[in-house]
Structure formats: structure tokens, C-alpha cells
């Protein structure tokens, strides 16, 4: 056991005399990389939104702006062999798990160079190579899939984990109940990460649930239910450290509820009729990125110029990725039925 910031995080968190585990057990490089990814998520989405407004892409798009801490915090310490199942609001999960912006842009623009060769689009961007089993257009669709991935992990005697992202609204789907129950009775290495941004599209949790927190449902599965400030990297990561240790140790699943907020509308068609400007502005003040930057600076891990350098490098990466995508290849109509089956039908 050590608290040296140089070493990688040990399997179980250790309390350091005066530094909290998140800072004690991650190296400066790890912490800076986390910040870089938060910027990457934010700027990817801002650029995607801009392209959409400029009519460069079609379809719909669900932005996670304001939720970057939960996306990156839950994924930054995962192994490549760990799995995630993502959602319709999955850009952050995808980048957090290691995807590159250029291939995400290419997908967003429907190009062959995209992660899904232009077949998936914004709602389905995913890089299976990096352990991302897929974003999902079906609310709650990824819940039992994550349970199955964890079942396979257990059968294959691996100590990997499956992280399952879902929203507060998804927790009202029957799939939530069936999935948490199976994970609990079989003690599977799943971490259920609920990104509770207060709304399922236009319906607030007050109107869609009879309990105050999604985590209040964990006891029904005899599962730990942890609530964290989803806009605070340290809180998110420390909850994940405990949950992953539990999962890798064969002690079973955990439900982590990240309280957060999407400062953009649900999707392009949203006119925000169901919430107030004040509420949105209030949450904008709780932006996870500047908050994390300040913490890194106050911990002496980062200085203002370095912070600026990181952001600049991300801007460059985004610009390059965008150009890469625009210059990409359009699929040909002839390739329409390619990849419907792995073994082409004779």
C-alpha cells in the first residue's frame, strides 16, 4: 500500500493522512489525462452541436454537456478488458473508455471512417475495441446486456468488470428491476452507474418516481446504493474505486447514483418547457470542468498555463478530428446490406 502519487492506483482505495484517495492514488498524469478527456467530451459535443445547427449532419443528438465528471470519472480507471454499456447520451462514456474524437466525428458525419462505418450515428457511436459494448437507442437497453457481459466475465474466470450507464428515467423501466435482481442473486461484477440529471426527457424524477433517489431502490436487491455529487470528479472516482474493488473481488454489484444535470435540452427538438431558466443557470455555475481545474490547481497538480495548454491541445485535436471527418468517405448504396450478418447468407 502506498500513497505515492507516482504509482498507479492499487486495487482498493487507501486513506492518506491529509489527501483524499482520489488525489492520493492517481498520478498527476492520470489526473491531467482525466481533465483532458473532460475537455474532449465537452468540445466534441459543442462542435457536434454546432455542425448540427449548421446543417452539416442530420438525425438527432443527445448532449451530455454538464455531465462530464460522471462520464470520465467512472471510466478513467477502467481496464481495456472491462466493459461498458452506454446510452443515447453516450459521447462522454465513449471518450472516457478511450475512443478517439476523429472516428467519433466521422461516425457523426456518417462516414466509412466512423466507429460504426456510418451505420450507427450519434446515438450509437461506440468502439467495441475499447470494451464499449455499445451506446443504445433504447432506454434501459444496456442494463441486461451489462449483466450478461458480467456473467460471461464470471464464467471466463476473469476479474474484469462491466459498467452499466443509465439515466434516472431508465430506472423506471422493467429492465432495471430484472437486471439488478439478476446481478445481485448471481453476485456479478457489474457497476450500475445511474446518471441522474433530474429528468427523463421532460419528466422530472419527482413525477416519475415515488422515492427521492434512484439509489433508494438498491436495497430491494440487497445491493449497496451510493449517492455522489456527479459534478465532482473526486466524489465520482472514489465511489467507483470502492465499487470496482468490490466487483473484482467477487463481492457483487453496486449501484452508484451520480447527481448531475444536462445544461442542454434533451435533444434537438427540446424547447425546455418543463424546467426554468433559473434552474439551468444555477447548474451552469456547478460546471464540473472548472471545478476540477481549480481542485487540481489547489492541489498543486496543475498550474494555469498547463491548464491552458491542455485545453489548447484538445482544441487542436477536435479541429483535426472534425476535418478528418468532413474529408471522410461516404458509404456506397451497394454496401447497404453488408454487415447485417457475420456469415453472409448463401
Amino acid at each position, binding site marked *: 500500500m502506498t500513497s505515492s502519487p507516482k504509482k498507479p492506483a492499487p486495487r482498493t482505495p487507501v486513506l492518506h493522512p491529509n489527501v483524499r484517495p482520489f488525489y492520493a492514488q492517481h498520478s498527476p498524469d492520470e489526473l491531467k489525462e482525466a481533465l483532458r478527456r473532460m475537455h474532449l467530451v465537452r468540445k466534441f459535443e459543442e462542435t457536434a452541436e454546432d455542425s448540427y445547427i449548421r446543417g452539416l*449532419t*442530420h*438525425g*438527432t443528438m443527445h448532449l451530455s454537456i454538464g455531465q462530464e465528471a460522471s462520464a470520465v470519472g467512472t471510466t478513467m480507471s477502467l481496464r481495456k478488458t472491462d466493459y461498458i454499456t452506454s446510452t443515447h447520451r453516450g459521447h462522454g462514456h465513449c471518450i472516457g473508455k478511450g475512443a478517439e474524437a476523429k472516428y467519433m466525428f466521422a*461516425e457523426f458525419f*456518417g*462516414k466509412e471512417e466512423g466507429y*460504426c462505418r*456510418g*451505420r*450507427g*450515428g*450519434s*446515438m*450509437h457511436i461506440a468502439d467495441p475495441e475499447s470494451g464499449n459494448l455499445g451506446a*443504445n*437507442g*433504447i*432506454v*434501459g*437497453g444496456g442494463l441486461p446486456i451489462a449483466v450478461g457481459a458480467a456473467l460471461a466475465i464470471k464464467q471466463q474466470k476473469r476479474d474484469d468488470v462491466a459498467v452499466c450507464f443509465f439515466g434516472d*428515467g*431508465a430506472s*423506471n*423501466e*422493467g429492465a432495471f428491476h430484472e437486471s439488478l435482481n439478476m446481478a445481485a442473486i448471481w453476485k456479478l461484477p457489474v457497476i450500475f452507474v445511474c446518471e441522474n440529471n433530474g429528468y*427523463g*426527457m*421532460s*419528466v422530472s424524477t419527482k*413525477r*416519475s*418516481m415515488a422515492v427521492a433517489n434512484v439509489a433508494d431502490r438498491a436495497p430491494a436487491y440487497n445491493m449497496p446504493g451510493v449517492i455522489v455529487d456527479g459534478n465532482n470528479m473526486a466524489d465520482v472516482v472514489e465511489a467507483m474505486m470502492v465499487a470496482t474493488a468490490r466487483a473484482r473481488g467477487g463481492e457483487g454489484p453496486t449501484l452508484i447514483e451520480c447527481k448531475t444535470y444536462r445544461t442542454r435540452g434533451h435533444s434537438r*427538438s*427540446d424547447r425546455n*418547457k*418543463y424546467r426554468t431558466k433559473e434552474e439551468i443557470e444555477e447548474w451552469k455555475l456547478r460546471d464540473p470542468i472548472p471545478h476540477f481545474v481549480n481542485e487540481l490547481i489547489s492541489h498543486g497538480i496543475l498550474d494555469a498555463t498547463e491548464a491552458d495548454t491542455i485545453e489548447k491541445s484538445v482544441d487542436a485535436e477536435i479541429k483535426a478530428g472534425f476535418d478528418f471527418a468532413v474529408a471522410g468517405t*461516404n*458509404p*456506397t*448504396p451497394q*454496401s*447497404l*446490406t453488408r454487415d*447485417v450478418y457475420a456469415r453472409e447468407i448463401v
Partner: protein
Amino acid sequence: MRELSFAQALNEALAQAMETDPRVFIMGEDIGVYGGAFGVTGDLVHRFGEDRVIDTPIAELGGAGAAVGAALAGSRPILEFQFSDFAGLAIEQIVNQAAKIRYMLGGKTHVPVVFRMPSGSGTGAAAQHSQSLEAWFGHVPGLKVIQPSTPHDAKGMLLAAIEDPDPVLIFEHKLLYKIKGHVPEEQYLVPIGKAAVVRAGQHATVVGSAIMVHRALEAAEILAAEGIDIEVIDLRSIRPIDTATIIASVKKTTRLCCIYEGVKTLGIGAEVSALIAESEAFDYLDAPIMRLGGAESPIPYSPILEKAAVPQTDIIVAALRNLVKGQS
């Protein structure tokens, strides 16, 4: 002549039904203050209140089951699925319960519920938000399945569905929501189970529904210039299906092409083709029965691929020319 969009026509049908029948109420996801993902319910929650315009949690199976239960208990529920794809979560209640309860109970009860099914591709929403599943439900005795193609029929058929004592699924093609057309102000019913000959012609019969009716009519105009005279039938109702109208037309034109957006294999065109091939019209056929259906793939995201996945007007024109002239 007053014009409304397809979405406005549906909204008016809902409003008039709720005004005239206190048993009628609507439920679904984000149909209240949000006004519905496609704006169909609009401001109804302000006019009729939250007790009759109910935002459900995101729980399609439970929502559908609640609609079935309310129907059994004397109400007239209308459930909006945000996308018909999500009805996949509620098949159990639609097919095992709503469709069968009356029969299983020996006709001692009935299930007057309406399921609204926004469907189809063309919006760039990809594989899980673009399906055309009308054929599935058309395969289920106990259900009625309708698919209007105009604002006029959208209002009249939705009102007919609400008035119907049995479960009805109304498929609303998303690309139709914005199209405008004449819609009478009063309440009126367009009967379920009746197709419409929307263009008379001599050389071939085209049977289509929803968006494909419009493409068929475009194609017919183009071909008219070449002296090819196409009869276009708007199916309107998938179950029950109006066999008589199709048979009469084919006997006259001796050629048949079915055009539909759903996957070609086992799609509605398969049934239309089989109905004619087993009918007295078979002996009148001067050419094989043609089907233009959706591609054998999920709906892709890329606009180029998405277009290629369903019959477009140019393809229809070429196919019909081939059907009538025997040229490729």
C-alpha cells in the same frame, strides 16, 4: 377549404374525442407539457388537464398494460408510443393481452384501447428508431391495424379507432406529420378496413400505404407522361385488409405491384401478393406480382444508406415501367 398538417389533424381528433366522450384519455411519454416527441398532443394537457393527458414514466410495458386495464374498466385510453420501435417492450400487453382477452373470456368483455405508433425511417434516427412494424401486428387476430396517408384520413381513422370497441394500432409515418391537406372541422369517421383507389389507371395496380402512397402517386404522374397509366390504391387498413378492392383493380389492370417501407420479407406486400395469387384475380394476371419493400437490413444512419434502404420514387418509376412494358 381548411388545411391542417397530419399532426394537427391527429391533435384535433384527440381533442374532439376528449370533448365529446369523458371516458377518453391519452397517456404516453412526454405527451404533456412537452407536447409529444412529434408535437401531436401539443397543448392538450393545458386544455384537458393532467388527469386526462398523462405523462407516464419511461415504462412501455407498464404503460400499455395500464391502458389495457383502463379499457377493461370502462375508460377509453389512447396510448402514444414515442416511437413504434419501443412497442417492442410492450408486445406482451398488446399481443398476449389486448388482442386475446376478449376471445379468452368468451366474448364477455372487450378492450377498447388505441395504440399510436409513430413509425418509419427518413429522420436519420437509425436502426432502433426507424422501423416499420405494421406487418407484425397485422399477423395478430384480435388487433386492428391502420395506416393513414393523409391528414383527412389521419383524423377520420383515429376517431374511428377511438370509437372502435376493439384494440386498434394506428401507424403514423413520421415523414407525414408535416404534410398538409384538407381536414373537415366536424368529427367524422373514416371506416377501418376500407382501402381507397386514389388514382384510377388502366395498365397496372399499385398497392401501398402511408408514405409509399405519395411516392406511388409521384411515380404515376411521371409515367403518365410516357403514356403509362397507373392505378394507385391506398391500403389504409392492414388488418382487416380490403381484398375486394384490390381484386377488382387487378382484374382490370392485370398487373400488380406492392410498395411498402417495411422489410420486404414477410412485409405487408407479401400478404397482398398472396391474397391476389390465391384469388380469382390470379387468372387475370399478365405478369408476375411485383414487390418493392424495405431492404433486408436494419435502417442505417448515413443519409445515403437510409435512402437506399426504402423504395424511393425513381426506383418505383423504373420498376413500374418494367412491370408494364416488360423492359428493365
